[in-house]
């Protein structure tokens, strides 16, 4: 079994073992599940030394699954999926540890669904066979629905069902598109059926068909991102979801949408993508600005963070649809950075929610005095989220804006307002929650971060700062893969990428390979 298969099936095996454990043994289940997630992260680190980053699919595994229908078991990792996989495995132990006390009922079921979710997400990032991808794509939906529906807030059922229906409509239409695409590919390849990503690439599909197929794929991915106006499930899901589910949802699951665009929708339907690009770019900008404006008026911290996610994912989308390597790299980097900041923010909100059982901004105020350590952490993460230079958020947003400028200065100008709004609503919220006089007696008694909470948040904060000052390792490994993916999407003039060395000086663009 190859490394990638191990990554996918380790959590599944863990989930099945959890299922067999006695439900009362909370401690044992927690320790075991946490060990599985830690092992998963350790295992995923083995990807790094051997990774070349030449734009091809590495660590590839290929086997026949259902030969008669050309369904294969094909896995591979490139610069695009590598960091998403690492992000997933990095968050897995952290988020699990954060839920150590907050999930005190039905620990067994929680751990089962949590581990199953890891399998679904890793599988979706690593699958290179459309059928396999679809299976994992659906597989990760179910555990999330349960996580929201069982451990969620008062309107959990509504939120879970809405999340499920939204995603299902999109993904089922994608299934039809996949079937049609495979049929078309079989016609080109002389009747040989194949769901393999590389076999369905580069088909000269007539434009009218391409538009429909792209629309089906785009709908499935746009719901996940989510792009305005398909975003309405997200605030509901986040507000009702328990803290760990929120963190995973924002940290990893939302990236499925943007990943899907870059991996599948763009290279498979180049003509349609170019035709639809202005529309999608505009929708991305609307997402950025609209979500930022809505975030500004929220009185619930979690809802505010949820809307900020929509806004940031809009940046990632815009980056991809600038059709420049810089922009797409920026989009990818925004995804990673947002994965860290959003997960951290949701966990931080969870910390005070556990103490006060309220998320209303008005209920807090001045807690910087009572919880100095917590407040420091929150501030660092906030600065990372709003893109302060030297923090991870800055690199992504900056590259996206650079790419957008090359495509259309108008886009860049409009998106840049989103950055400003982002700073406004986040800092305004921070001011109201942390500074000023302590308004409520309950806030005076709040204890600062416990050791466990500190250990949970430290890697996230460290990651945010580290990626901000030293983004080069990521950008370098992404570059070729992003460029190749754009090339498949029919971007002929590949722009020279901008990279950063550790000290922040620009280095000369590497000559394009192909």
């Amino acid at each position: 079994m190859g490394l990638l298969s191990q990554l996918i099936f380790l959590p599944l095996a863990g989930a099945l073992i959890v299922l067999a454990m006695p439900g009362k043994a909370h401690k044992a289940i927690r320790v075991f599940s946490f060990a599985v997630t830690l092992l998963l992260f350790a295992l995923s680190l083995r990807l790094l030394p051997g990774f070349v980053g030449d734009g091809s699919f590495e660590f590839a595994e290929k086997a026949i699954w259902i030969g008669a229908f050309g369904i294969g078991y094909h896995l591979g990792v490139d610069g695009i999926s590598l960091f998403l996989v690492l992000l997933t495995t990095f968050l897995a132990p952290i988020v699990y540890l954060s839920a150590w006390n907050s999930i005190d009922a039905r620990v067994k079921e929680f751990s089962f669904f949590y581990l199953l979710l890891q399998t679904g997400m890793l599988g979706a990032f690593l699958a290179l066979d459309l059928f396999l991808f679809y299976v994992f794509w659906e597989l990760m939906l179910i555990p999330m629905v349960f996580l929201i529906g069982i451990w969620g807030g008062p309107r959990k059922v509504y939120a879970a069902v809405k999340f499920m229906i939204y995603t299902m409509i999109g993904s089922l239409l994608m299934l039809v598109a996949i079937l049609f695409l495979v049929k078309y590919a079989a016609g080109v390849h002389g009747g040989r059926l194949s769901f393999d990503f590389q076999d369905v690439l580069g088909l000269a599909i007539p434009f009218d068909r391409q538009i429909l197929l792209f629309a089906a794929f785009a709908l499935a991915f746009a719901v996940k991102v989510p792009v305005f106006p398909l975003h309405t499930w997200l605030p509901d899901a986040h507000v009702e979801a328990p803290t760990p589910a929120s963190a995973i949802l924002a940290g990893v699951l939302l990236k499925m949408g943007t990943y899907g665009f870059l991996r599948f929708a763009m290279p498979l339907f180049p003509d349609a993508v170019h035709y639809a690009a202005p529309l999608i770019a505009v929708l991305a900008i609307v997402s950025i600005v609209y979500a930022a404006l809505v975030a500004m008026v929220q009185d619930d911290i979690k809802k505010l963070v949820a809307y900020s996610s929509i806004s940031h994912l809009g940046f990632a989308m815009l980056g991809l649809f600038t059709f420049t390597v810089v922009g797409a790299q920026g989009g990818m980097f925004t995804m990673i950075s947002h994965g860290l900041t959003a997960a951290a923010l949701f966990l931080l909100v969870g910390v005070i929610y556990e103490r006060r059982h309220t998320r209303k901004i008005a209920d807090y105020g001045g807690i910087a005095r009572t919880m100095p350590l917590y407040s420091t952490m929150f501030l660092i993460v906030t600065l990372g989220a709003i893109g302060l230079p030297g923090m991870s958020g800055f690199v992504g947003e900056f590259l996206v804006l650079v790419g957008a400028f090359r495509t259309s200065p108008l886009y860049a100008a409009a998106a840049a307002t989103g950055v400003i709004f982002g700073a406004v609503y986040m800092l305004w919220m921070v001011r109201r929650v942390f500074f000023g006089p302590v308004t409520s007696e309950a806030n005076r008694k709040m204890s600062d971060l416990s050791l466990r909470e500190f250990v949970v948040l430290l890697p996230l904060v460290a990651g945010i700062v580290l990626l901000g000052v030293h983004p080069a390792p990521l950008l370098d490994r992404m570059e070729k893969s992003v460029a190749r993916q754009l090339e498949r999407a029919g971007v002929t003039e590949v722009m020279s990428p901008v990279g950063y060395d550790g000290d922040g000086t620009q280095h000369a663009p590497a000559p394009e390979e192909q």
Partner: protein
Amino acid sequence: MNPPLVTGDMLRAAIPFILLAAGGTVVSLAGAWRSKRGALFAALFLVLAFWKLFPLLDLEKGIELWDGAVVADRMSAFLGGMLLLSGLFALIVSPPVLRREGRNRAEYYGLILFSLSGMVLFVSTTNLLVLFLALELMSIPLYVLSGYNRGDDRSGEAALKYFLLGSFSSAILLYGAALLFGATGTINMAAMTGGDPLLATAGAFLVLTGFLFKMAAVPFHMWAPDVYDGAPTPITSFMATSVKIATFGALLRIFSLAGGAANPFAHILTGENAAKILPWLAVMTMTLGNVCALTQTNIKRMLAYSSIAHAGYLLLGLIPGSGAVDAKGILYYLFAYLLMTTGAFTVVIALSTRDKGREVTGVERYAGIGFRRPFLGIAMAVFLFSLAGIPPTAGFFGKYLLFSGAVHRGLTPLVVVAVLNSALSVYYYLRPVVVFYMRDTDTPVRVDDALSLRVASLAAVVLLIWFGCLPNIGSLPGVPALLHWVGSAAAALP
């Protein structure tokens, strides 16, 4: 020249049917002596029939007796196997229900065997007379079984409704058969050619109508919710699965004969105007089934409407489009449908109680049961997700086969309608899951923990997931192996 008395071929072809009919007689007779072992006796005959059926799966060439009166080929063997599996599930899950009601009579099991013998005959004939005979043989025991709960007036209502409407549809089928015979001068559907086109088309349509009634396709679906709801739950489960398998199996055989343009059934499949009817039927059936299921609070009625919707998906496979009828897709889907529907009904049986003679099967009382009875909860979730077509279950794979086949035959718009329907269905399939896991209650509820119910649902869960995603592992058959069997069964058709 006298025909030979009994040949080996004859026996091979007819033995499963004979075993089932003889079993029905013997088990019913045992009822006269008030035997309590009816289920066991019936299972013995059923397993014996299974054993005799199994070699037929490898038949190189079909055996045809008495002018197509009985055909034994890999198709009839595969369908027969599924029917027997459905019967076996019924034999396993019935005793706990009957015992707790003090009604564990051997006749009940005898009737199941009689009905099964009719179904096995139904899927292995091309002769109109035998077809009608088999239809009655499979239906009449089901009419009786629907009314088996004598204390429950809804059960009586179900039996009467099913009997009246069923007889009506049988008469329509018989009328169609008469017209076909009048037009073509033969009762062997394989040999039918030419004839007066109007008469032949009308005959073919009337025969099709009889089938549509049995599969509960719109607009002949009205009986299904009431009958499914009123009948004892094990019988609901049995008829929801086996009747669908039998009707679609027989239709596959009949439609596959329509290769020659002169065959009356070719008018339905490829005729200029007539060919538009099947797509509309499919769309109406799946849409109505799903839309009506949305508002059901009684889980048996919900599953009844869902079975209507599944008939709609299956009809998709019967539309030839630019190719031929999709036998493979239909067979795989039927297999999945058999497991997931039986499984879902088994869980319903475990959770049903009786209140003043009435069976109570509302879902709402079982809030939080998923945590108190983990296995039951997981099993139900798997069945419902499979019904909704979510991977990695056989329900998803069957749907994939049907939809992909339809796309290949140029029916993409229909497939889009079908997937939108599937998305709609997620809403109501999710509801029991929501109740089981996402609502809490402290009200104690009674759950039937009978071993046989657990065994049946465990088997269904394992098979559903097994044939939903696993490749062949060593000598263990997985999805490719099942695909191979389905393919070879389909290849037995002309």
